[in-house]
């Protein structure tokens, strides 16, 4: 008779073991290359938090001395996204750097058009890393596309000697070193690392809010071993990113059957084959969320995802599709929870899908807060002020 150790599925526990991970720890190879003089590693600052990744390795998340690698799409089209990240840093009095010596990662273009090559992509990445190292800060990546691509670039630079040699030569011509950060860190990992401190300073009750989460493909599918997982969140079977932050703010996170699906951004598609992006995001994401959860808001952590999920809903309304979920980034939700102004900090007027019902549900007098923003704009129009400052943005800070 054969005895099988049958375990009840509900009694099974899953524990990630880094010693039995199916992939090697890239940092070991990175440090080995540094010892051999091939490159220099930018170390994570002392003030950091460790979070677990998919196969159990602990990832260092810097808390301050961060060099903010900005996102084209965020800064260009949804500036409240970046503004919220900076606002959170300022509220905690953290030392951060907002550079002008920064280019786009150029990876949106790369994934869209392939009008580039691995040497150019790697050289652009390393140039930006070097710019951070030169001022003594550690890169914190705002965009999911940049984050995913820089993980790819790091992987390629570690494993391809020829590429490394070419990029080193390019850096020498620019008067820079071949430097690679010890960790490639996404800003949403910083927000997750800060979630308890954010919750301590929460002034807006969000316990009546239901949200759905959309995780960015390039965050958790590309170089998957680097994404943050937590045994308390989804039993570590899905990435904890964004969900962990929202739960810390008391938000009910609703699950839906197309959680794993892409948003439909497509890189090239969102710009020149937009029927695909808007059809996919509406039919596979928004309508499913509406049907199965009917959330007050959907929250994600990437430029392309916010853009696609938000902008696609307008055309769908013309076809009487079941849409109408406002879309925000986790940084905006965290900032809002801490009392940030919906228009002066979150800059919600750049978003498309109506977010006023969501704001009203949180107790905001939408007309009043819009008037507060308009007051600042009027001062700019009249020439009384040249720009709105951080102090102006916090004049009506909820405490």
């Amino acid at each position, binding site marked *: 008779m054969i005895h099988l150790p049958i375990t009840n599925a509900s009694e099974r526990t899953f524990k990630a073991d880094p010693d039995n991970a199916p992939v090697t720890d890239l940092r070991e190879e990175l440090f080995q290359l540094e010892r051999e003089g091939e490159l220099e590693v930018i170390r994570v600052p002392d003030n950091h938090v460790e979070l677990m990744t998919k196969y159990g390795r602990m990832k260092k998340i810097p808390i301050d001395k961060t060099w903010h690698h*900005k996102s*084209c*799409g965020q*800064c*260009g*089209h949804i*500036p*409240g996204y*970046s*503004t919220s990240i*900076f*606002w959170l840093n300022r509220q905690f009095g953290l030392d951060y750097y*907002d*550079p*002008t*010596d*920064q*280019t786009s990662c*150029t990876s*949106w273009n790369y994934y*869209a*058009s*392939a*009008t*580039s*090559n*691995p*040497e*150019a992509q790697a*050289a*652009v990445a390393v140039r930006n890393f070097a710019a951070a190292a030169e001022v003594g800060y550690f890169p914190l990546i705002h965009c999911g596309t940049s984050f*995913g691509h820089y993980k790819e670039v790091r992987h390629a630079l570690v*494993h391809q000697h020829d590429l490394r040699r070419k990029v080193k030569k*390019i850096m020498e*011509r*620019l008067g820079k070193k071949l430097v690679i950060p010890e960790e490639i860190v996404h800003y949403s990992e910083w927000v997750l690392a800060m979630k308890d401190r954010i919750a301590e300073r929460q002034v807006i009750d969000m316990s009546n809010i239901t949200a759905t989460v959309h995780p960015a493909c390039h965050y958790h*599918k*590309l170089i*998957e071993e680097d994404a943050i997982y937590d045994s308390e969140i989804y039993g570590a079977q899905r990435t904890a990113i964004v969900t962990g932050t929202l739960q810390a703010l008391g938000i009910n996170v609703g699950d839906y059957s197309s959680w*794993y699906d892409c948003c439909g951004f*497509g*890189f*090239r598609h969102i*710009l*020149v084959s*937009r029927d*695909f992006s808007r*059809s*996919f995001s509406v039919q596979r994401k928004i309508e499913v969320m509406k049907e199965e959860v009917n959330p007050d808001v959907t929250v994600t952590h990437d430029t392309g995802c916010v853009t696609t999920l938000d*902008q696609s809903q*307008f055309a769908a309304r013309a076809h009487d599709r079941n849409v109408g979920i406002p879309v925000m980034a986790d940084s905006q939700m965290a900032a809002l929870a801490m009392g940030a102004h919906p228009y*002066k900090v979150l*800059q919600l*007027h*750049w978003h498309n899908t109506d977010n006023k019902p969501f704001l009203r549900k949180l107790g905001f007098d939408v007309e009043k807060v819009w008037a507060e923003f308009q007051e600042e*704009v009027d001062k*700019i129009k009249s020439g009384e002020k040249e*720009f*709105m400052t951080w102090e*102006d943005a916090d004049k009506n800070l909820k405490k």
Partner: protein
Amino acid sequence: MMALDLSQNKHADVSFEEKERLFDLVKDDDRWHHVLNGCYECGICVAACPSAKFYDFSPRVIAQAVSREDVDLIYTLMSDSIWDCSQCFSCDRCPRQNSPAQIITIMREVAVKNGLKTAQKALEGYGRIIYKIMSTGSQVSPDMLQPDAFPDWGTHVYEIAENLEEWRKAIPPETLHTTETGWKIDEKTIIELYLIWHMTGVMDLIEGVDEGLFMILVDVMEERLEEAGYDDVTFD
């Protein structure tokens, strides 16, 4: 939805030797040995693929074609299929650790580098983005938010376009007080970017995709490089 024509007739005008040459270029890529480990047709990649739901597109067909080194089929896919890919890497769920998305990235680079007409056609309408990223180091900018550029994004684009200058000044971070770029970028940073394009041959790829765009970009870049003291850097 256009059906993918997998017959041998579609590209009969292209010689087998040429098709083989292009496939050899794909296999010569340094990433090749990391992206393909053999395919046993489980279809997990197709199940996860957003493009497979809307196009006659299959990451499994691509993985199978390159595994079997079916040169004719690979050429057809390189011409007619690879631009449907969303580059989301959902197919990296492959239990064999293949990456159909990365295979496609390599195929796209070969298609662009070798001036395939289908690559040029796929990138029609994309020229303004190439111009923006190559010349300014920023991929999208506030001044691109115009109703004629994004008509399907609705009426709020009109409101943004009308208020653009003031609304950009009403954003707290100083680096975001811009309209032509996403953020303020130093002149020396742009020059470094141009030097990277120059040293890596990226402008040759642009020339293969859109010669007119290439010429405009070269004028812009060479003028700025000359002002920065790089008279000897040209893109011819």
